[in-house]
């Protein structure tokens, strides 16, 4: 093993959180910063060639090569875990920018009550209404504390949207249920494709409060506070699973790399597969990685940030023996606990008489209602919420050909073909994404059988829905069908029901937990500055810190928390390198 010259800071993972931290440290300090990224380099101009549905959306060219490493999955401790052999329920990206390159860009803030999840529910409905093995938590920070960092994250990306609550004043047309914002969105809402307008009008006619999705697919040309200029979205319809060829969708490569490229104290090393964090005497000494030639390298560093996505952050701690693994039988241990996904379903497939011209769109061009994030749970059989919405990604034919209304039973042959052709551009989805509560039985540990390409154990997910999630989906499906009718649908296919957790159906790359944030070292891994409780020169960035999934998509919150952590490191930790609390 080769040992390299020490650097001040190593950041593992070159996605949104890792490169945001790199940008803050590189521009505000003189530290020498090294980012280790497992995948390859990327540039905006590469993405012209990516407008190919087969290679990018079907063969998934931007994702981590699953032949090298995957995760194993089982529903409960009684079951046998097997590897997820082909991508399904989530799509971790690889290469510079990580999943932040192929994301859709829907960029919610969490609600104030999300940060007080346990207290909020217990105060309103009582502890006994929570499911038995539920482990939802309050965060050790409040919405108000994080608000300025949400603002910075939105300005960084140029998020398009309409405020619904400006310093306490409710504004119709925005999300009136959101927490108070200090300022309006940096850019105006995106244009509204036909399906989105139908949803807006249908939801409005039922008394709901539709608002344009907050979008990182920025609506107009925008220059952010770092001086990085990006074009406005052209609605080409190649967003999610693709990179943006004009740089309109905020991605680390078009938002953070332009700043970092000018920094002489910054280095990005691609093709570096980090296998271990080396901790000795209560401090990180560096990381061990494989270089592209297959040589093992030790890279010493004074300060290490793990920013390698939820599952891999957790896996690196477990592989490195840092912290006590969570044991669901005793409830003891911290690493791997509170694994959550997001309850994401196509609640109603709606069929229309008239065409939608659905090929025009963007990853976050759409409309949502927040009425069921803010709902009253007194008279329902679940205790979580979420948003009904529609998004016009841009209908591409391999993924979207073949939908037929319930009145057509054929799945191949002339009858199916005729109906599928007719409905190809007359089909839309009313979608639901909802909160996934944390449960004591949903967790991660190292798989005892299956290995990655270097022989390291895969991470094992033990994960299943509970009645709470199924009941919530049933309720929301009925609301989605009502909205579909109000949109003027001629036929509607309701979602058949949640059933058990499926590793096969895409549900969003929004996996949380494993190295959760908390107020106490006995039941969490990081403190409110994302600093490891036991190893003060180790920080863990990203959604692995979230104690549960609060319905919305996690990226904006992950970046806001990174800003907050960066301030604490720069203003306090560097002067006195120890525990921040």
């Amino acid at each position, binding site marked *: 093993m080769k040992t390299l010259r020490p650097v001040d800071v190593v950041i593992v993972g070159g996605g949104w959180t890792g490169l945001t931290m790199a940008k803050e440290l590189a521009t505000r300090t003189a530290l020498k910063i090294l980012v280790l990224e497992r995948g390859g380099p990327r540039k905006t101009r590469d993405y*012209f*060639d990516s*407008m*190919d*549905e*087969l*290679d990018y959306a*079907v*063969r*998934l*060219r931007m994702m981590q090569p*699953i*032949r090298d*490493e*995957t995760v194993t999955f*089982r*529903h409960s401790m009684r*079951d*046998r875990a*097997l*590897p*997820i*052999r*082909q991508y*399904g329920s989530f799509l971790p990206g690889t290469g510079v920018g990580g999943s932040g390159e192929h994301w859709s860009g829907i960029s919610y803030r969490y609600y104030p009550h999300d940060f007080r999840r346990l207290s909020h529910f217990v105060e309103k409905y009582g502890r006994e209404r929570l499911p038995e093995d539920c482990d939802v938590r309050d965060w050790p920070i409040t919405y108000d504390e994080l608000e300025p960092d949400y603002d910075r994250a939105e300005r960084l990306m140029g998020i398009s949207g309409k405020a619904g609550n400006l310093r306490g004043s409710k504004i119709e047309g925005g999300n009136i249920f959101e927490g108070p914002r200090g300022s309006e969105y940096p850019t105006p809402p995106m*244009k*509204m*494709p*036909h399906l989105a*307008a139908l949803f807006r009008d249908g939801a409005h006619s039922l008394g709901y409060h539709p608002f344009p999705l907050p979008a990182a697919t920025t609506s107009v040309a925008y220059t952010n506070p770092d001086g990085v200029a990006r074009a*406005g*979205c*052209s*609605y*080409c*319809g*190649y967003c999610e699973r693709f990179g943006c060829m*004009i740089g309109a969708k905020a991605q680390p490569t078009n938002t953070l790399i332009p700043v970092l490229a000018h920094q002489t104290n910054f280095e990005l090393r691609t093709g570096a597969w980090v296998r271990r964090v080396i901790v000795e005497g209560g401090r990180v000494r560096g990381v061990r990685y494989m270089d592209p030639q297959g040589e093992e390298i030790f890279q010493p560093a004074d300060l290490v940030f793990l920013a390698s996505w939820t599952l891999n952050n957790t896996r690196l701690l477990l592989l490195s023996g840092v912290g006590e693994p969570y044991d669901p039988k005793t409830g003891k241990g911290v690493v791997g606990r509170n694994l959550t996904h997001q309850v994401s379903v196509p609640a109603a497939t709606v069929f229309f008489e*008239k*065409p939608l*011209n659905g*090929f025009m*769109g963007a990853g976050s061009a759409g409309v949502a209602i927040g009425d069921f994030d803010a709902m009253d749970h007194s008279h329902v059989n679940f205790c979580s919420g979420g948003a009904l919405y529609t998004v016009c990604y841009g*209908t591409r*034919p*391999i993924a979207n*050909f*073949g939908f037929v209304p319930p009145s057509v039973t054929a*799945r*191949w*042959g*002339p009858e199916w*073909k005729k109906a599928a*052709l007719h409905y*190809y*551009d007359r089909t839309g989805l009313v979608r639901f994404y909802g909160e996934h509560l944390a449960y004591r039985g949903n967790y991660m540990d190292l798989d005892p*059988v299956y290995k990655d390409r270097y022989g390291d154990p895969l991470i094992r997910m033990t994960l299943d829905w509970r009645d709470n999630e199924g009941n919530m989906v049933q309720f929301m499906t009925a609301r989605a069908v009502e909205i579909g009718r109000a949109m003027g649908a001629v036929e509607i296919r309701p979602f058949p029901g949640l059933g*058990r957790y499926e*590793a*096969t159906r895409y549900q969003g790359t929004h996996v949380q937990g494993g190295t959760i944030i908390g107020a106490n070292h006995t039941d969490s891994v990081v403190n409110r500055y994302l600093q490891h409780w036991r190893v003060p020169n180790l920080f863990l960035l990203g959604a692995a810190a979230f104690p549960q999934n609060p319905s919305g998509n996690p990226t904006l919150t992950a970046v806001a928390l990174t800003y907050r952590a960066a301030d604490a490191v720069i203003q306090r930790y560097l002067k006195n390198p120890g525990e921040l609390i």
Partner: protein
Amino acid sequence: MRRSRRHFLTVSATTLGGALVYTFDRKPGRVHAQGAQAGAVKIPLRFFTEEEALAIAAAAARIFPSDESGPGANEAGVVIYIDRQLAAAYGRDHYRYTQGPFADGVSEQGYQGKETPREIYRACLKKLGRFHLLSAVEQDARLKQMENTLFFSLLRTHTIEGMFCDPMHGGNADLIGWQLVGFPGPRMGYFDDVDQHYGTTFRPKPASLAQILGRPVLPSEETEP
């Protein structure tokens, strides 16, 4: 890349180039003249034997038939698409985690089999035999029996892929699939149109990625190991 030079698929050019090309509102339109002139074309096969290619083409054509609602798998060249995919990285399971041990799981854990797409096709082709020589009614009956097999589900998926992929992958010949559904293909954008045309048909003329970029792009089946 190793390619079989022994096997060729001989196709009538009138069906390859798309005998019936439909207008964007899918009313039958003009007939391609150049196809008729070309006569028969011999396409080198990379994975299938000629017999196998004929059987798969016939099955794909029952899934996505050529009929009064428009052209189908034959005109799009679906079998050529499938042949290239099976010959390349996808066919060898490059996009799957293939380390053992292999064990049966529950459906929510996804496909756990050891067989690669190539092996699944080959095994089923043995059973299909000279499928292309059966009558349409007999073909439908055979496919009906296989409806719930992994092979059929792959074939149905691959037929849709071959109908609607960018033509660089060997299917969607003459952009016939995109014309069928009114998909314009990759475009730089629709800023002026995205919030217009509500409820009315808007159909820009389709173009392939190579046509849009003005240069060829190499598909994964030509570049992946």
